[in-house]
């Protein structure tokens, strides 16, 4: 459908302002598009035209010695990551690439990473996209260019609108430029693997690892293994060589009560975590609906038990158990009722990451908010985009 819609492709922030000004006059709504690789995330947007960041590209500032990079929103993530890799640096939060999940091609953009707050396994150690995003420029619904934050990593000047825009899925405005803080890229990595643990023991083992001083930067449990083998519990260390050898040994000793640990190194280890970041263990099957559950790690297994009792589900844990990826057969509601009830009981929330459009039209994609929170949410939307121009209904009806 979107192919038939008019596509608006501003080449500058100024042009973007002009487009929004016109859209406001014409009472048009705009669906914001980056690389188009995650169009299936969120509720379907019935918009009058597509506003694309395709021509808003280019790295505008990169200071390796200050650990900071700025780029226009439509800059391909790959371009940013290549520039960082050349200087031995990286985005701390391991940005999530969902092309496999959605069966899409094209290039994810840096702006969409910010707009959707998408973080990978390293989130537990070095923070989420929202923690690394330190500055934004955006065009709001009144066609004004607005900035928040900046290029320095310590900044408490005024309200932190950067955080508000991060994860707002384009409903508050068009991001035109984003600034992230960076980390040095570790020289080496290794994955320690425990075999055959049940969920309960696996969460305990990951908890022990994450409570150690060894800075575990990935903790995932695959109940049916990476390639349909037995259960595997994976723990990642990313260090320089001296430190890696030392910590891998200390962690092996610490986790001995859970069994013998195998070790994967280098590219084999890296490939494994790329698959986890891309949800590959579940993405291969195109049929099932896919959920992302975020919850306190110590409640993960009880929540999963409650779900498994009533729904046939395939799943795996990331973030030490604080994140569950779950695949179920779509049915009428993709299991929403049972999943939301179980995850609420565990003081977490569930996002319907992938499902046919019909289901995402009728089911909440993001966890429903209580009346008081919804009132604030609507107010925030109104304060940025009073006429409801941007991505109407993407997150919640009316927002």
């Amino acid at each position, binding site marked *: 459908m979107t192919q038939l819609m008019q596509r608006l492709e501003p080449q500058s922030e100024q042009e973007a302002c002009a487009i929004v000004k016109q859209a406001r006059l014409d009472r048009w709504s705009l669906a914001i598009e980056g690389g188009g690789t995650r169009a299936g995330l969120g509720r379907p947007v019935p918009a009058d035209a597509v506003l694309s960041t395709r021509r808003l590209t280019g790295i505008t500032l990169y*200071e*390796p*010695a*200050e650990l900071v990079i700025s780029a226009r929103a439509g800059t391909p993530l790959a371009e940013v990551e290549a520039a960082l890799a050349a200087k*031995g*640096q990286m985005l701390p939060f391991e940005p999530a690439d969902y092309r496999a999940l959605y069966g899409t091609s094209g290039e994810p953009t840096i702006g969409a990473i910010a707009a959707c*707050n998408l973080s990978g396994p390293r989130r537990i150690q070095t*923070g989420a996209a*929202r*923690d690394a995003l330190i500055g934004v420029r955006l065009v*709001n619904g009144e066609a*004004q260019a*607005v*900035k*928040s934050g*900046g*290029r*320095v990593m*310590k*900044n*408490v*000047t*005024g*309200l*932190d*609108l*950067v*955080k*508000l825009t*991060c*994860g*707002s899925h384009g409903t508050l405005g068009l991001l035109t430029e984003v600034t992230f803080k960076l*980390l*040095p890229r570790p020289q080496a990595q290794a994955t320690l693997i425990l075999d055959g643990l049940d969920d309960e023991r696996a969460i305990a083992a990951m*908890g022990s690892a*994450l*409570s*150690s*001083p060894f800075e575990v930067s990935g903790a995932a449990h695959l109940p049916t293994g990476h390639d349909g083998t037995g259960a595997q519990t994976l723990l990642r260390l990313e260090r320089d060589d*001296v*430190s890696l050898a*030392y910590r891998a040994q200390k962690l092996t000793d610490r986790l001995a009560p859970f069994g013998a640990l195998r070790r994967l190194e280098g590219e084999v280890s890296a490939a494994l975590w790329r698959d986890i970041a891309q949800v590959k263990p579940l993405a291969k099957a195109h049929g099932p609906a896919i959920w992302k559950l*975020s*919850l*306190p*790690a*110590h409640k993960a297994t009880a929540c999963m038990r409650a779900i498994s009792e009533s729904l046939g589900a395939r799943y795996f844990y990331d973030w030490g158990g604080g*994140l569950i990826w779950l695949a179920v057969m779509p049915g009428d509601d993709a299991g929403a009722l049972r999943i939301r009830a179980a995850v609420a009981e565990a*003081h*977490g*929330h569930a996002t319907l990451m992938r499902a046919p459009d019909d289901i995402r039209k009728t089911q909440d994609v*993001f966890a429903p*908010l209580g009346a*008081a*929170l919804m009132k*604030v949410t609507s*107010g*925030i939307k109104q*304060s*940025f985009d009073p006429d409801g121009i941007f991505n109407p209904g993407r997150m919640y009806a009316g927002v």
Partner: protein
Amino acid sequence: MSIPFPLPDDAILARRDEILAGLAPLLPPEALITTEDERRAFETDAFTAYRRVPLAVALPTTTEEVSAVLRFCHEQGVKVVARGAGTSLSGGAIPQTDAIVLGLSKLNRILDVNFPNRTARVQAGVTNLSITEAVSAEGFFYAPDPSSQLACTIGGNIGMNSGGAHCLKYGVTTNNVLGVRMVQMDGTILDLGGEAMDAPGYDLLGVMVGSEGQLGIVTEAVVRILPMAEDARPVLFGFDTSEEAGACVAAIIGAGIIPVAMEFMDKEAIAICEAFAKAGYPLDVGAMLIIEVEGSAVEMDAQLAKIIDIAKQHNVRVVRESKSAMETAAIWKGRKSAFGATGRLADYICMDGTVPTGQLSYVLKRTGEICAAAGHRVANVFHAGDGNMHPLIMFDVNDPKSAASAEYIGLELLKLCVDAGGCLTGEHGVGIEKRDLMRYQFTEEDLRQQMRVRAVFDPQWLLNPAKVFPLDGRN
């Protein structure tokens, strides 16, 4: 002294007795402070040049009492200024005569420590350091460590998005808080986030942190607790010039090394802190870095070797490693008491701008020139790894001319930070101190967007209203 306060609302002042009578049944008797002598204790915070005695002080003991007080004040149109421990350096907790102070000191319990989830649920009046004390036996700590951590509260830290010496590696408050229970001005109780790593919908927690008591009042927080490193070791590096020290900082980060802390002191600050803390700081150098590394002995040795190598390329004169826990404590005591130690010598105001670290040398040089031209001594002590400067401009409080000049110089230095690509405040907050400089950093559109968001939470501008945004031109 030139920062204006809004004119008090005479109608509110005239109704003081009626307002106190309305508040009384909402709180335990000892939790409402009305006498002039007792109210005076709440007239200012650590930004002591400005003070106003509030209408009354409420010290609620539960979230429900906070809600009842706010609902009443909302109905009556009474302004409310939240207060943790009153350690704000920007005047964030300074009241106004027609406002009540809502102090959180009685909400001082740690409610739950959840080691399997590595989180703690605490009340807003709990001190920063006491969170670490509650979890340290199990090998955990709460990471943000502002210098006032013995006194300052987590509620105040959330209000100001406080940082500290170790946030280079561990982040600031906003990176270490997962949830809050807060009360809106109309009394509505909201839970933002919780014990999970993220929450659905807009990141309201993200905008709440650092909102300086303007969006709501936090009564509880869920914070992340982190496992302590195996060991930590601070090392002193002395240089002839600030430029060399600054360049060394950039080179260390550029080489892919993130020490857990990198603190800078100039010659003046070294002398002041050494006289106070006897930490063994080198007195014959022009500038000093305290660089802390952590890990096992082997790891620390390896990282230090790399850092010392880089320092040598920048003509380091002195390298002194801490040899014991006592020496480590003394080294940090000297740094963390820099403000207090300066206060023994002269009155001072402390600025808090951040600059890109590549601009540190230039900004330090200009800072010295600007202060010298105006006849003020200045000591520089700050977080070098993240460019968060803290020039301490000394003056004589008994000389109005000196005080006014120091205040003027302070604002000039903040403009210098913005001009260099940085910002007005890295961790102390805008408060009243930098309120009227906001237009220097932000355009009218930027500010109006912030004010519209503010108004979503508090449409009548009753919460800490004299702060952050210039008094004119509000929505």
